[in-house]
């Protein structure tokens, strides 16, 4: 891999940038691999990368039905944080955040991790209580997190409407300073380039259409470009998890929904942290290019189309304007949707399956971008050793039978 740096940029400037190498190859699929990863999103590419890097398994193919990074990896609002409630989640997401913190150097690809802080607003006594619970748990887990007073919120985000007369006034907030955003496409591309450099074949426009089995064992996959053999197959296809599972005769506790997001026109920087409010249903950050990046809600019906309804977007934008009344005249430039894979407990599945050699990594739903490196890291471990790493052991499929769910919906918002 030719390294990227300011010096290589200067050198290439002299040759009018005509000599840059390909970031990754576009190889023809080989007839067989040691491991096949289905899904060329961030998680799949990271899995391949760590298989090669950590476990010395580089005879790996990543099969992607479209273009790499074109799934949810390419359409998320890029919020990164590890402030999850339950220990199991906190440890997993924290592992991921730590990997993120060294990722640009590790991959030699600037993923523009911007640890500008993630602020969660509280609008009711119930919110405050939940927020406090979370912060306390995180602190004892060694993860940075603190409560902000209303004054501190006001100072940190002067454009936020903190007026007590608001319909749902801001009462306080929590912040994780190490949280923030990153350039989502760069994460996919960086992993792709680094995995490719370690010998992984990334095969785009190659849709898996069947899972080949011999008795209870997986032997490979059928694709639009022919059958490809491998004794181990890891599926990391996000919204399409159920479709892949059905190919192996399995069903999953997953439903696929459209999740929408939108960006405004680029404006001069005015918002320097990520702001989330679950009560008013908005979250927003401002990218380094200047767009406001906003996440909307899911449409309640199942869908595999990357499109949603206008009222869902309007609702989110309304919430944003309620929190930030100066944004009324800023304009929405583009809106889109991804297909998210929602688990009943809003936690992922990283697991072996009843089919030997077949592994699933899915259920990240609306929040798996932040987990990309960590997810790939534990999934590579799980595939390489055919057993879960302690970090992902609680996220196995069995939990749906035993009832040991990891419910990250946040507590029910009811009171007497």
């Amino acid at each position: 891999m030719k390294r990227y740096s300011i010096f290589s940029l200067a050198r290439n400037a002299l040759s009018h940038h005509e000599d840059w190498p390909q970031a990754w190859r576009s190889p023809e699929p080989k007839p067989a691999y040691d491991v096949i990863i289905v899904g060329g999103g961030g998680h799949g590419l990271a899995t391949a990368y760590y298989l090669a890097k950590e476990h010395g398994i580089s005879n790996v193919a990543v099969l992607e039905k479209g273009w790499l990074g074109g799934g949810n990896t390419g359409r998320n609002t890029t919020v990164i944080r590890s402030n999850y409630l339950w220990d199991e989640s906190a440890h997993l997401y924290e592992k991921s955040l730590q990997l993120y913190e060294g990722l640009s150097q590790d991959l030699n690809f600037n993923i523009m991790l911007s640890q500008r802080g993630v602020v969660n607003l509280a609008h009711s006594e119930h919110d405050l209580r939940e927020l406090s619970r979370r912060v306390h748990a995180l602190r004892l887990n060694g993860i940075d997190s603190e409560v902000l007073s209303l004054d501190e919120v006001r100072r940190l985000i002067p454009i936020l409407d903190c007026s007590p007369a608001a319909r749902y006034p801001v009462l306080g907030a929590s912040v994780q300073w190490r949280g923030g955003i990153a350039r989502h496409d760069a994460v996919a591309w960086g992993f792709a380039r680094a995995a490719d450099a370690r010998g992984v074949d990334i095969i785009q426009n190659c849709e898996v259409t069947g899972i080949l089995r011999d008795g209870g064992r997986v032997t490979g996959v059928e694709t639009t470009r022919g059958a490809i053999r491998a004794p181990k197959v890891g599926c990391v296809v996000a919204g399409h998890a159920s479709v892949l599972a059905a190919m192996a005769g399995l069903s999953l506790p997953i439903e696929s929904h459209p999740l929408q997001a939108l960006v405004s026109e680029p404006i001069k920087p005015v918002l320097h942290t990520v702001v989330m409010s679950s009560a008013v249903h908005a979250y927003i950050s401002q990218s380094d290019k200047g767009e406001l990046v906003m996440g909307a809600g899911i449409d309640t019906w199942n869908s595999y189309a990357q499109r949603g309804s206008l009222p869902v977007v309007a609702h989110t934008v309304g919430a944003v304007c309620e929190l930030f009344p100066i944004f009324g005249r800023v304009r929405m430039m583009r809106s889109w949707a991804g297909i998210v894979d929602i688990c009943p407990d809003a936690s992922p599945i990283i697991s072996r399956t009843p089919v030997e050699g077949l592994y699933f990594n899915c259920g990240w739903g609306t929040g798996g971008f932040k987990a990309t490196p960590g997810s790939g890291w534990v999934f590579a471990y799980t595939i390489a050793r055919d057993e879960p790493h302690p970090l992902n052991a609680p996220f196995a499929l069995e939990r749906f039978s035993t009832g040991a769910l990891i419910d990250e919906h946040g507590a029910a918002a009811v009171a007497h």
Partner: protein
Amino acid sequence: MTAPFDLRRPEGGRIDRARAMRFVFDGAGYSGYAGDTLASALLANGVRLVARSFKYHRPRGIATAGAEEPNALVQLRGNARSEPNIRATQVELYDGLVAASQNRWPSLELDLGALNSVFAKLLPAGFYYKTFMWPPGFWHFYERLVRRMAGMGRAADASDPDRYDHRWAHCDVLVVGAGPSGLAAALAAGRAGARVILCDEQAEPGGSLLGSGATLDGAPAMQWAGAVLAELGALPDVTVLPRTTAFGYYDHNALGLVERVADHAAEPLPGQPRQRLWLVRARQVVLATGAIERPLVFRDNDRPGVMLADAARTYLGRYAVACGRRAVLFTNNDHAYDAALALHAGGVDLAAIVDLRAEPGGLRVDAARARGLRVIAGRAVTATHGRSSVTGVDIARLQEGSDLAVLDRESIACDLVLNSGGWTPSVHLFSQSGGRLRYDEATGAFLPGRAVQAVRAAGSCNGAVALKDCLKQGAAAGAAAAGDCGFAAAPPALPAAEPEPESAPMRLLWVVPSDAPVGHKGKHFVDLQNDVTAADLRLAAREGYRSVEHLKRYTTTGMGTDQGKTSNLAALAILAEATGREIPAVGTTTFRPPYTPVAMGALTGRTVGALLDPARWTPIHRWHVRAGAVFENVGQWQRARYYPQAGEDMHRALARELHAARNAVGIFDASTLGKIDVKGPDAARFLDLVYTNSWSKLGIGRCRYGFMLREDGYVFDDGVTTRLADDHFLVSTTTGNAAPVLSWLEDLLQMEWTELKVRLTSVTEEYAVVTLSGPFARRVLTELTADIDLEPKAFPFMSLSHGTVAGIAARVFRVSFTGELSYEVQVKASYGLALWNACMEAGEKYGITPYGTEAMHVLRAEKGYVIVGQETDGTVTPYDLGMGWIVNDNKPDFIGKRGLRRADLQRPDRKQLVGLRLEAGERRKLPEGAHLVADRDAVPPMPMLGHVTSSYWSVALDAPIALAMIKGGRARMGETVYAPLPDRVAAATVVEPCFWDPEGKRLHG
């Protein structure tokens, strides 16, 4: 030229010369006319340089006359109404308009950001990804510098003062675009009797007819348009919406439109919304959105004065503005000759027509030559000159098989470069609708293919070129759409258009050669807004970003506020060439809403501020307000949290309220609790199925507390249910869960247990509920009722009596959530305030004191009563709460029965509800949410036992108390646990969760 040349031509155009309008751009005053856009007025005043580009800060002018404008973005208005990134080409001029250029410092003329151009060589596509990685962790600092260059315009510095509107609309036929095609479609559908909405983003309907000078039936075409509009205006079921952009095409023929109601004035009239969002459900849609001219990609094609040919014609025809004095037209097609001829006729000196085609021919070319114009064939503009305005071009001969054009070089001085690379049909909405596109080789454009919704495309967005074809397609589409809605109609008779000459084929040349390889000298801009060049695109392809979607994201082409309306096609064609593929194989990027940017205020509508969400008030709300209560939001309800008296803070108010409730009598507004009437012969059976405990044997007039679980065995809701009759129960729910519980019960009845004869009706709002609680509660009630026997024997705990209270028909429930003797009085809602007042009056001598939700929380916590949503969080079973007694496992079935049996719900070390007592003398409460550990000296990450769910200062005990959920808690009674807090480690003893009157003497009293 004889007369002095005035850019504003002495006659013509659709401006109102009688109404002059003053405006300010970058601090300088100018004037224009009503009917001008900001762009036309600037051009008329000779203002060329209006913007700086995003990345390199190159000087930019006005390139187009419409929605596709990539360059001329301005900051419009000021202060709280300041708006960034507004296209000057779409701003209607009004008197007093103020605009400023953006993205420059210190001024538009002298912009230091242009230094970026010096480093341009270091800033190829994707350069960010390749650098700023050293030293590790320093991106943080680099980012600050990068961020300074972010964005273009600025958000306003104060809250938007304007209001916005939403409205739903329904029609048979929605026609988007009011050019000739759209007008013909609307006329056809309207005459047939269909309900029609015709919208157009421009101030005036007419589309390209507004500026083209075309004729119909021998008269100016706008006369025909005027007649059509008059006829449409007279049809009661036709709505014509000018200034209205269809921005999104959603499922099942739903479209989003945004109407700019008041943007053509300095500010809206009183009561008028600034903009209105239309949510249109159309049975049929006709898209007549026209086509956008495509620029050619040649070296330094971005200088002010380089403009689309048809735009220049529009400025002249519609606004009577000549965009320059001496022009060169650079074209690959016949059509642009029309524009050149029109300009020539308008007095512009046409220095040359540079045609990429070796042998252009046909009537238009002949006409140009006949007028003595110089047509230079087989040559290209290889460079432009000038700084803040173009001063001339170089041209040279194209050579077969060469990437360079160096022969027959010539320079031509000019101040206007018109260019045309053909037309791109506006298929945005069609594609958003899910319709397939097909590539047309001849015109190098994607056209609407198979539709998947009830939509038709007509006119130049459908590939039609000649006016007569546009009219014909429009009329046919309108009639067919009406026909599909059941309105029989023949297409209307259409006026005759001038015959248009057949066009000779165009020459598609996506990157125009110059005297050096592309990327070595100057810049061939493709996306003018994001400063993406042909060299950037080729670089990306070379680096492996071969998917058009990768290309877009790596180079940011098409990602600006114009979404690449003038550039996307060239970008993908360049990619196709670079990767040796055909254009259709490369495909387009995805068309997404909005077509043009939509103000977030418009998406918001009027549900902001006080209208954000209903604030639900109880029938007694006004009293609480007058009493100075502090409120809290509980779902949509606003509930009195406490009632501070003069000089009291919350702590003191609370102490007073608590003291009264324990020692005298408190009064509480409990109206918000959910109430569901359950009626029918199977009511008891139904409740047996949805609650963990049993109801069949509950006596009439008796109350019982119950838990509802979810199927997975976790607590869903709780409350007291009363049997009113054999076949009639009153279920109460938590405030926040009232609606979800009802909907869940309906679900079960309608979908699961359809054989059960049970009917549910919400009566939450039918009754106001006043709770009297405390040792004197009975005495107060005694003063108010004559017909209810309050003697404990006659009216025991957990029972109901009917009668009158304060003369009002009432149901009185003897239930308690405070641990005190307590009555809940329910009366019809409109009498709630009267009841409350009567209680206050009667209770005065007993020290009656209103208490709010905060005191209620403390009182119940002292008793160890749980709150669903506070002690529980969706992962808690009744057993975890130490309330196994409420689960009747002998019942054959109830919701959650099987769920409770699952392995993990049977674990002995599950988190369980306990009480916590602090060390004697400790006055500080534990924070709610604090986590507990067994080892006082543990360091992070430390194993945790659980967390504090409730924590209060108990006035009754004169000590802090807490409830907590901790692992294996029931087995830990008496143990010490620790809460490591930021400032200390607090120790606490695990105790039974009930702190007050464990025997329950008081509430039974």
